[in-house]
């Protein structure tokens, strides 16, 4: 199984350092960002599988960052982390394509489990995308020469 590349976005720096240290110990490769803009920069610069995103942050808020991620990197799974989950924000988050919601305070083990699930789904999705592409190429080899199309 491939190493999970995780991005942690939260304005609590201590949370970032400790959690990332822990997750590194569990074999994850972690990146951190303390605000939305930084997070987007990190995403642009690195290949990331899963993002753990705090909803409430100074500057760009979580939902805005989510939008931006899903727009630029649709396959990256995003887990929302919130100090105070309201039904509205949860629904809008999920509608925007978040993988799941986690409520603070959250056990690191739960967090890890969720990350694993998200990663698994991402892999599945990528696998399916690849398969579809292969099928597509098989059925229509000429399409290789066309511009890459997203899977249907």
């Amino acid at each position, binding site marked *: 199984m491939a190493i999970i590349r995780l991005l942690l976005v939260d304005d*609590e*720096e*201590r*949370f970032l350092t*400790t*959690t990332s*240290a*822990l997750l590194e*110990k569990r074999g994850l490769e972690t990146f951190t960002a303390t605000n939305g803009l930084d997070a987007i920069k990190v995403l642009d610069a690195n290949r990331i599988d899963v993002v753990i995103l705090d909803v*409430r*942050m*100074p*500057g760009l*808020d979580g939902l805005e960052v989510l939008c931006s991620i899903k727009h630029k990197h649709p396959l990256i799974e995003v887990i929302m*982390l*919130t*100090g*105070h989950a*309201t039904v509205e924000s949860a629904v809008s988050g999920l509608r925007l394509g978040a993988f799941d919601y986690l*409520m*603070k*305070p*959250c*056990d*690191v*083990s739960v967090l890890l489990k969720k990350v694993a699930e998200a990663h698994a789904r991402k892999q599945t999705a990528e696998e399916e995308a690849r398969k579809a592409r292969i099928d597509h190429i098989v059925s229509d080899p000429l399409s290789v020469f066309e511009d890459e199309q997203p899977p249907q």
Partner: protein
Amino acid sequence: MLLCGSLIYYFATYSRSQVKSELMRIASDHRRLIDEFLSERAGDLRFATSFYNCEALCTQGRLEQLFGYLQSSSKAFFDLGVFDDEGNHLAYVGPFDLAGKNYAKAEWFTALQETDLYISDVFLGYRNIPHFVLAVRKDHRNRRWFLRATIDTLYFNDLVEQIHVGKTGEAYLVNRKGTLQSARRGKGRLMEQDPDDGSYTVDGGMAPTFSAGRHSGQRYLYATEPLRLIDWVLVVRQEMSDAYASLSHAVLAAAGIIVGGGVVVVFLAFVLASGLSHQLALADVEKREMRTQLIIAGKLAEVGEMSAGLAHEINNPLQVMKSEQAMIEEVLSDMKESRVPPKSEDLAVIKDAAQQINTQIERCKGITQELLKFARKNEPSIRPVELKTSLAEAVHMVERQAQIENIRIVQELDPELPLLIGDPNRLQQVFLNLLNNSVHALKGKGGGEIHIRAQRDGDSAVSISVADDGCGIRPEDMDKIFHPFFTTKPVGEGTGLGLSTVYGIVEGLGGQISVTSELNGGTVFTVSLPLAPTEEPDHANADGKRSNAHREEDGHNGDYTTAVGG
């Protein structure tokens, strides 16, 4: 009242004219009666003089016969006498022995030289009893003779005296000199001067008069009418109070009604007024209760609005603790597996994590304390408040939210701010609500500034303004912003109690609140609050110390209070 008054006036006028016409009618009727009586008697004598001649009457028995006739016609004739032109009493019939006396000097005799009928005033004469005479002159074949009759004054008196008007009304006759010609039921004997003479007016001619006069302390109404045949006047007199008895009864009744009505009106007014004032007092109490309830409701609403933020505030440190705890466990399990003495760096990690947990616990404690301080429903405790502390605490509570919205909160406080008097919790609620509104106004703007200014406002007040460069208030909403439950926030986000609560509190403190706003330009709320008296420095110091301690504590928390805004 007016109606009553005018009714009384008309009734009085009517009643007066009634009394007047009644008295004058009586006077007129009786005058006619007396005149008729006198003219009948004169007619009797005239008839006698034309039927008999002087000589015939002087014949023995003839005069008696005539007297008999006359008496059968009227009992008023008392005696009868025949006189020659020299005043000699030729014949006489009557109870006295008067024949042979000479009357040449008698007033009636001299008067009769000019006229053919004479009626005298009442006089005593030879007989020494009051009487009056009725005499006629007869000129027959160059011979002049006279027939004279005495009228029974008692009989005549009856004619007049029997007149009764009301309880006190009476009638009597006077001559032009005011001498009584008939006895009066009350004071005043025959032939005496009328005691009422001068109290009434008498017409010089024949016209009836009506007058009111005062006599011996009583007010009287007089109706007079001169007799036709003789220079006498019939006077009808009635006490005014008696005459106007019905009127005064009516006036009394009306006055009673007015006074009674007035009393009823006053009583009703009193009852209504006291009822009204009671209701007003009740309404006042209700209003005060309402305001208290509004403050409580506003406070609860603020708690609700802030609960999201506070949950976030608490859950963040808890999340940090979770991570630290997980880290400790991780390190511990690593140690267990490796079975070697713990490495110093691992111990350092554990120590650091434990310390971090403690820090986060302290942070949570601070948050819960803030929450409790705010939500506690305590009676207003009026005491001197240090404005700087109060403002700092309020700022502290919105800081986090402001940070998220990228809002800078700038405090421009006069360093020599005096103490305020008021309930610190409520004051804080005022500032907190205003700050929350400003934060809300700047929401979605991607940053902004809130300026808090506080300075002395004259000698007796302090003015605190909270200004933002946010969305502003629409002009049409300006007069509604202090109304309870008025809100521009989406359903579920605002209760509309914030500013009404602020208004209630500021008013309760004897202060004023004003607002200027420009749509999309920003809003300035200015609160002017009366100053605290300068005494009670103990309280002030205690307050000051507490706030200092608070700030130091905050300092430990690092990111929690420093660097306001983004």
